[in-house]
């Protein structure tokens, strides 16, 4: 199921650990990326076979960690932090602003599938708050205006 390049990465990962199961979480990340940002039952079974663990085990792991998604996110997944330090300097307001702009609540995707919002716990950019992650990129000290600008640009 993995594309050739990613399969090479998978094999390399498996060789870096004493037990195949140890590579489970990094391989799940690769599988999620291959499947457009989420994990289907088929992919979970495939990774379970690769790592030689029962499917129930993989399901338990996937539902434990917040980064594994069981339904597709938007093309641009906006992860807005509202934890303590960000909360102190406007993180909650930034989230509300984003929700209003896109007309969806956190945990949902826009109808055109372009944007999804996720409310985050501390993402480790506290001294540069408010901070967000868009897909894999950090954006720090984000004002509501900058958020608007970014969303409009991404829409293009």
């Amino acid at each position, binding site marked *: 199921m993995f594309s050739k390049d990613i399969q090479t990465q998978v094999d390399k990962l498996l060789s*870096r*650990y*004493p*037990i195949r*199961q*140890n*590579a*489970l*979480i*990094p391989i*799940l*990340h690769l599988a999620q990326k291959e499947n457009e940002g989420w994990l289907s039952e088929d992919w979970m079974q495939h990774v379970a076979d690769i*790592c030689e*663990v029962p499917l129930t*085990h993989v399901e*338990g*792991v996937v539902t*434990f*960690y*917040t*980064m*594994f998604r069981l339904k597709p996110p938007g093309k641009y997944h906006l*992860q807005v932090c*509202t*934890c*303590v*330090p960000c*909360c*102190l*300097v406007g993180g*909650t307001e930034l989230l509300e602003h984003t929700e209003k702009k896109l007309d969806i609540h956190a945990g949902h995707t826009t109808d055109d599938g372009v944007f999804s919002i996720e409310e*985050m*716990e*501390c*993402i*480790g*950019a*506290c*001294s*540069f*708050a408010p901070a967000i*992650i868009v897909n*894999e*990129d*950090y954006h720090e000290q984000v004002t509501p205006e900058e958020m608007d600008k970014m969303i409009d640009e991404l829409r293009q």
Partner: protein
Amino acid sequence: MAEETLVLFKNIRNPKYDKSLAAYKKSGGFKSLKKVFGMKPEEVVQEVKESGIRGRGGAGFPTGLKWSFMAKGTGKPSYLVANADESEPGTCKDRELMLKDPHMFLEGLMIGCYAIGCHHGYVYVRGEYFPSIKSLNAAVDELYADGLLGPDPLGSGFNLDITIHTGAGAYICGEESALLDSLEGKRGHPRVKPPFPAVSGFNGCPTSVNNVETLACMPFILGDNGVEAFKSFGPQNNSGTHLVSLSGHVNRPGVYELRMDVNMKDIIYEYGGGIRNGKKLKGVIPGGSSSPVMTADEVDVLYNFDDLAKKGTMMGSAAMMVFDEDTDVVKLLHRITRFYAHESCGQCTPCREGTHWSRQIVRDFLNGNGSDEKLQRLNRVGGNMMGTTLCALGDAAAMPIQSFVKKFPEEFRKYYATV
């Protein structure tokens, strides 16, 4: 602005530094590792012990002592795992090291591997830290290309590998035994201790889990006269410089490298530039959200492990969150309880039920249904998580609740007092 004491940020504060292996070597990198390869592993551990360095992840446990606990002669391989799960709210310092000077940290990791006889070190990076992961992977590739990692680094004959491992979003995986479970490809459930990781850790083998910053100190400590220099940066038992993540309502939030004998007041007003918008200070959460909160009149204290412990709070991961007079303290506590409820792994009864219930009580206050009785209940429920849970997350959830209730009772009463 007040000056930093640059050890860890020595290269990072140099605007011309491009974090490449060549640049790192040029600034003196890997001299310590070469020296270490000429020492006996026990000698390395002894130096680290003498330096007095305490874990920079939050617990402040003496690192040299931790390494000396490693079980020997078990016939199993030993492992060193760097804890780069940095998820304690307020903390953003390890990422600075990983992003801007990965080689200093990696050299420290390699020194640690040699000290405990580990031939394959792992770095457990939280999954959200995409930029740090890329930075570390690039740095590790450089090391392999250079021969500093692989079968014979610096002609030592000590074959050494490093693998960068990603987490997937769980604060609890910063707890060392949960981290090991996660590294093994399982849910991040903290383990019953004993056995401790030094006896049975990664895949049942002796393991030491150390914070990124702690390891990044090793090149300095093992450098020329490093031990004495390191000890000179702070009072007895609190040696070295440390990275302070300053955030909240200050004019200049940021990560600062400071000695261990700097007054908290100075951190807020000198380094942080004082409270923004001309407001007054109301309180500080001194060491990550797990630490008991301090009121404005309590901040005249040296910012290190022991001085803060004497004041009934803790330095933890050196993440200082400053809040001003306009801050709604109850809302702040609500956000904190929400955090712990979200991050509890759910295994043990007090934390699973207590984190959620305490959040429900605080929310009740915000909804206008507070009372003296409920305030007592909040304090009781929070306190019941203290010392009864399987891991320290229960304590971490309990301390903010009890300290907020103790230090800011009138803020709660504002929500229900009609008089």
